[in-house]
């Protein structure tokens, strides 16, 4: 009996200890769905390596911002970077965690991946509804080797609000003045033509089914669904196909140094090899966190992930951050986040 009671007390003490130490046992995050698979993979490996758990709810970028502003999580995650003014308003700072690429995909009989070439104007014209057939002279001019069918183009886009759409429309707004004026950019826009699929998987399944369809998806979905990706003409004037290398090239040529809070769009990057519709997904934390230890645990997790998780990211078709960028991010922590322990993380 006394034995039992003692165990109980010991258990209670242990539990109390666990509560106190909870800040290093579990990290809570919420937000973007796009990076969820890689966060989950990193979390599993990190848990094995350090015993710290990451609890990530993929509720969407908008939800991630709401949750971190409401202080219900240790970090928020958002696909679209928040402008510095909005970050300052809530005392937040932001850094990229991993990169991806959005890629136009096409379904035409016999067309293989990266056989078709498109330039920004033609892509914008298709999504504006100005080019409605695949054998349009403008498309044919870019693809002299392809026999293009006399078929209507079925334009597919996202029906839900999404970071993927934000990146895609940001790119179109950058390269096409007409798109910028008529449609604009955002997580959801007033599409001139086409039909909407829910989620990347919805768009992928429409494109897969509809002969003559064009859509845009995160590159991982193009690969999983074996969709024919398109070569895009980038800012330097070269045709590039989507890959980890061309996405990394976009990140390497971006001017991160003059971007406050890493607020920057990777779209239409200047590099010769750069994939023009690349994007980074972002993490939001407080500059002066109420609980320093918890924010510190978040930073430690990403520091670990960047150093050890590159291969895991590539396996899942994400693109790890270039080394120089990681150094810049960790330097920004030192400058921005007011926590004693942070300096210790950045070696």
């Amino acid at each position, binding site marked *: 009996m006394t034995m039992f009671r003692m165990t109980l007390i010991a258990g209670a003490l242990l539990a109390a200890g666990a509560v106190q130490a909870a800040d290093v046992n579990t990290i809570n995050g919420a937000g973007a769905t796009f990076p969820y698979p890689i966060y989950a993979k990193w979390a599993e490996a990190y848990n094995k390596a350090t015993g710290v758990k990451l609890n990530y709810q993929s509720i969407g970028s908008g939800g991630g911002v*709401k949750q971190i502003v409401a202080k219900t999580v240790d970090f928020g995650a958002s696909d679209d970077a928040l402008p510095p003014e909005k970050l300052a308003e809530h005392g937040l700072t932001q850094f990229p965690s991993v990169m991806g690429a959005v890629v136009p995909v096409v379904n035409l009989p016999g067309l293989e991946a990266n056989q078709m070439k498109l330039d920004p104007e033609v892509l914008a014209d298709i999504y504006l509804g100005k080019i*409605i057939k695949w054998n349009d002279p403008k498309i044919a001019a870019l693809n002299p080797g392809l026999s293009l069918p006399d078929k209507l183009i*079925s334009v597919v886009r996202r029906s*839900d609000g999404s970071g993927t759409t934000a990146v895609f429309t940001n790119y179109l707004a950058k390269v096409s003045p007409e798109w910028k004026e008529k449609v*604009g950019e955002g997580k959801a826009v*007033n599409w001139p*033509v086409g039909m909407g699929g*829910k989620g990347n998987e919805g768009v992928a399944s429409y494109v897969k*089914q509809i002969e003559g*369809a064009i859509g845009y998806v995160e590159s991982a979905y193009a690969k999983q669904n074996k969709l024919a990706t398109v070569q895009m003409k980038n800012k330097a004037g070269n045709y590039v196909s989507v890959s980890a290398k061309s996405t990394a090239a976009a990140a390497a040529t971006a001017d991160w140094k003059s971007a406050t809070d890493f607020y920057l769009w990777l779209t239409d990057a200047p590099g010769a090899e750069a994939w023009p519709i690349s994007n980074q997904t972002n993490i939001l934390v407080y500059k002066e966190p109420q609980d320093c230890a918890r924010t510190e645990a978040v930073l430690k997790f990403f520091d670990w992930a960047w150093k050890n998780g590159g291969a895991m990211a590539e396996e899942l078709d994400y693109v790890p951050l270039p080394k120089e960028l990681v150094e810049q991010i960790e330097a920004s922590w030192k400058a921005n986040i007011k926590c004693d322990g942070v300096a210790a993380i950045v070696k």
Partner: protein
Amino acid sequence: MSLERSLRGLALGDFAFRAITLLFAFLVLLLLAGIIIMLVQGAMPAFKAFGWDFITNETWDPVRDDYGAWAPIVGTVVAALIAMLIGLPLSFGISIFITEMAPQWLKRPVGTAVELLAAVPSIIYGMWGLFFFAPFFAKHVQPLLVASLGDVPLLGALFQMPITGGSSGVSVLTAGIVLAIMIVPFMAAVMRDVFEVVPSVLRESAYGMGATTWEVIRNVVLPYTKVGVVGGIMLGLGRALGETMAVTFVIGNASKLPTSLLEPGNTIAAKLANEFNEADGLQMDALIAMGLILFAITFVVLLLSKLLLMRLTLTQEGQKT
């Protein structure tokens, strides 16, 4: 003495039971009031910004913060109408067949199949619609419709080949048909149940007087069960108006007003499901305002059905006297 006590105990139990059920009933009212208040409150900013134009405006432009609900309202009503046009005769036929005409050995399997269909989750119908029915529709049904009805004056406008997504089969009509398939089991199950409560005496008397099966159905079964039948129809219509997942898969989620039934469109419920996650500010208010409109549409439909019932009862009583 002990009898009195036990009686008092019973009275107490009665009172407690009454109080508890009353509480439950009020809970429903409270919940309804809460939902209405929330919806109105959330919708206010949108109605303030756009006024009544919100209902008739076709645009939905999150970039410029210009919102109107007209396209989804039309889509909701049209898809539900198509579903009723197809679903009502079908479910009526099924239930009449099961209760009045089917041989005993067939009654159970058909009845069970209907009930099973009613239990299939809507996302399954959506995926079936997207992966199987829509391509089938595009390949076989759509060209037939365009060729046969496309040239008919007036009606033909509804059956024009869509410019975008022609070969996808994703359209308002597809959504209506999938909805019909979804609501048929519901309506058929309810109708079968109400047809079965018609006392055999009534039925047999009519047959005894030499009535045909049709006359029995028309003059005995239907008048006896009309409240239940209308209830079943309303249940189906309610589901057709509010269905979300299945519709969003097959309607194409276009924010424009469709010009033909074969064009992609949108419904209020599908739009809410698609955009709620990432919406904020005025867009969120506009979405909630659309929720309120859907609520109003459902309410009006319910009201109309009550009026219809009242009229039916009145005319019947008029016939008796």
